């Protein structure tokens, strides 16, 4: 048996090694293709096979295009591109203007959002309408579109000036602010010593297979069914047991092991505007509510210092 396991382990190791080396190889490949002299060298040298040289310069061209695109995207944050709608009945021959919004949090680009516009009015060629988009519903894209893009049909009289730049800018602001808030709450959880997302989800799944029931008021507070866990919370120092927030991070809830709980309202820019702190009996804790007001970051420290 042991030999089978050993072999399996070895295979897994080798697979990982192969994947590693392949990544390294493609990395080296793109570095080589990005070298500035390469294209001129390819032109100068007389290659035996002209076809191969064409292919080589195509690959080089592709790499340099990619480099330029990535640099633009990384630096500008909002970039535009053109695509074609494959629908044969698409308006305006399927010409689509895409706007791409990059989100970088903590030094990495974590997500990209697209808004695709078409031109529904054959006479007013500059009027854009959102055709498709990948913005999640918790971002207020519709009010933004109402504000910066003129309505297509009836609102022609109250038509607002179309301002694609402002639209892109404010949409990006909304999206980035949302991601920053999400990241900030995740950091709060780290600060409070709560397990990270994956283990938390697994734990919850074990504890509540049909989800957390929200309207069982009768025996609330007996939250921890595990004997050991209860002992730990009773004896140990009071600590935060959960930090929850809604999808758009406009509200966060904090629960302590001694039954205290708090609900705070978060502004879009990550400020906590107000909060309600209550003891287990439902009595307001005013000084904590006062201390909570401020940036989302450092909330745990502020409310811990009690």
């Amino acid at each position, binding site marked *: 048996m042991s030999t089978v396991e050993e072999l399996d382990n070895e295979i897994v190791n080798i697979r990982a090694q192969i994947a590693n080396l392949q990544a390294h190889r493609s990395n080296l490949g793109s570095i080589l293709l990005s070298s500035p002299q390469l294209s001129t060298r390819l032109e100068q040298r007389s290659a035996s096979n002209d076809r191969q040289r064409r292919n080589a310069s195509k690959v080089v061209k592709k790499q340099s295009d990619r480099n330029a695109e990535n640099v633009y995207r990384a630096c500008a944050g909002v970039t535009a591109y053109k695509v074609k709608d494959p629908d044969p009945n698409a308006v305006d021959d399927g010409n689509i203007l895409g706007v791409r919004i990059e989100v970088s949090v903590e030094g990495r680009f974590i997500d990209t959002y697209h808004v695709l516009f078409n031109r529904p009015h054959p006479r007013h060629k500059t009027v854009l309408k959102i055709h498709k988009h990948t913005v999640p*519903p918790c971002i207020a894209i519709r009010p933004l579109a109402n504000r910066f893009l003129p309505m297509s049909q009836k609102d022609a009289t109250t038509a607002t000036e179309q301002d694609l730049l402002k639209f892109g800018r404010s949409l990006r602001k909304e999206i980035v602010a949302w991601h920053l808030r999400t990241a900030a709450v995740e950091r709060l959880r780290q600060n409070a010593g709560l397990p990270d997302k994956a283990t938390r989800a697994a734990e919850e799944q074990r504890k509540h297979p049909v989800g957390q*029931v929200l309207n069982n008021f009768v025996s609330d507070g007996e939250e921890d069914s595990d004997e050991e866990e209860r002992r730990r919370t009773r004896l140990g120092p009071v600590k935060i047991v959960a930090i929850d927030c809604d999808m758009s991070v406009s509200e966060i809830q904090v629960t302590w092991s001694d039954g205290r709980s708090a609900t705070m309202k978060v502004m879009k820019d990550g400020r906590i505007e107000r909060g309600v702190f209550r003891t287990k009996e439902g009595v307001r804790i005013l000084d904590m509510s006062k201390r909570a007001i401020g940036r989302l970051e450092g909330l745990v420290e502020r409310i811990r210092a009690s």
Partner: protein
Amino acid sequence: MAPHASITAPDYRNIPHSHRLPSSNREVQRLFGKLSRSSLLSLAQQWLTKKNRDFCRPYLFSDQANDAGEETAAYEAAHSCEELIEIYKDMESRRGGRAEVRDRILEGDWRHGISMYQLATAEIQQLLDHPNALRWTAKRLAKIPNTKGASRDMEVTSESEHLPRFHAQTVMANLAKELTPLMKAHYLLTRLKTMPLTILRVYVHDSPYSSEASLASSNQSTDAAKAVYFIWPNGSPFVWISLATHLGQIVGEEARTLRDTVVSAIPKAFSRSNSRYQLVSTTFTTRKLGAMLVMRGSGKTNAAGGGWSIFADNSFSQNTLDFITTAKADALEKGKAAADNEDTMSGSKQGPGQLKRALEGPEASQADHRKRVAAGRFGSSAKPNDGRGLERFEVRIDDPFPTNVQQGGEAMDEDNARPSSRRGRKGRPSLLDRSEQEREELDNADNWCPDVRITFSGSHVFAGIRQLVEEGVVDGEKMPGWMTGEAGVTTGAVKNGRIRTKGSVPGV
């Protein structure tokens, strides 16, 4: 009907969690007959936790002492909940059939009845085990425009909310306030951790009494659906509604009316003074919860269906710091553009490939071409086993009948040739399709617009169309966009070859 010792009078209370239905109740029997062994075991353990004991008290030894003179039962009553937890843990660790667990629950530990809480959690467990069992309709909670504050709606400020505020307890209390005068109901609201969803189950009890006896006695009519489900995807304006029915169950008029009453109470429960909500149809109905999550969920994919899915799953553009162009996954990258300029694509990618294809003959290259066209039209959507299939898709064609049929097949780019691109399809007039805007059709009487309705049905409609494109049955390049499912609706009207859309922004 059933005589009860205590006084039973009409009241204004909800049905509490702890009210019990007898284990012999048909509803209970049916539900527990369907649950799997592992689900039953996990449910039983969950019911026995301290938190839930008030609602799911098992039959213990002390109870046995009270009802004197009872004949010996099949299962010996346990002495404490802890003992029971051990028993169920033990059952979990060994193998066995599900009947063993079911009998122990119904005839042993809960022989005196299954509480409403247990019934509700068990039904939600069943729903999660079989996410394709119910038929869901997506609605949207839309704000009713306020005449006074109309200008404020336009602004997106630091604190403005564009979604209805979902505070579980408040919504629950408001809903109960709306419904209790009309009917008695049991509510269970639960937030899932595995999916971004909040489920509300409303068990409708059509009676003025909320007592246990009236609950037990009223369940004679089994054809009425008892429960209505509402699901809120977190952070979205949608609500999914389903009438909990089992297979083949006929829903009576009465049950429908009750359901409608509950549904109409939902927007009221969300409304506050100065911000009123109403439920707006989103013309989306399916049995698959997976499809609901993708098209009416809280993620990026709502307004990017069909071929546009490549924008949502990041296959259109690489990560900004990904500079590697030599990787194999290149073929996916251009995605959308592939349908239009795949020749230049393949040329830039692999020179030798072209040669090989030429040698294999035109058939292979054509199949390859069709595959790439399908990839361009459908993107990463409409895969056969992605669990997101729609089982029914209906459209009504509002375009004028093509007058010049001769020219149809050849000149596809011209406007009047468009309807002919559909002419080859197998259209089946469906009486089920709704006809709302027939007046409008009469208006443009200069062209003859017959009432043509097309219904696609199957286990996964768009995967089927994709397969037809790949096989060459449907011309992928001339196929109208609504056949790729990019509109994200299950019922729609086609005008000018496009599904009509309401509103300025899709998907919100």
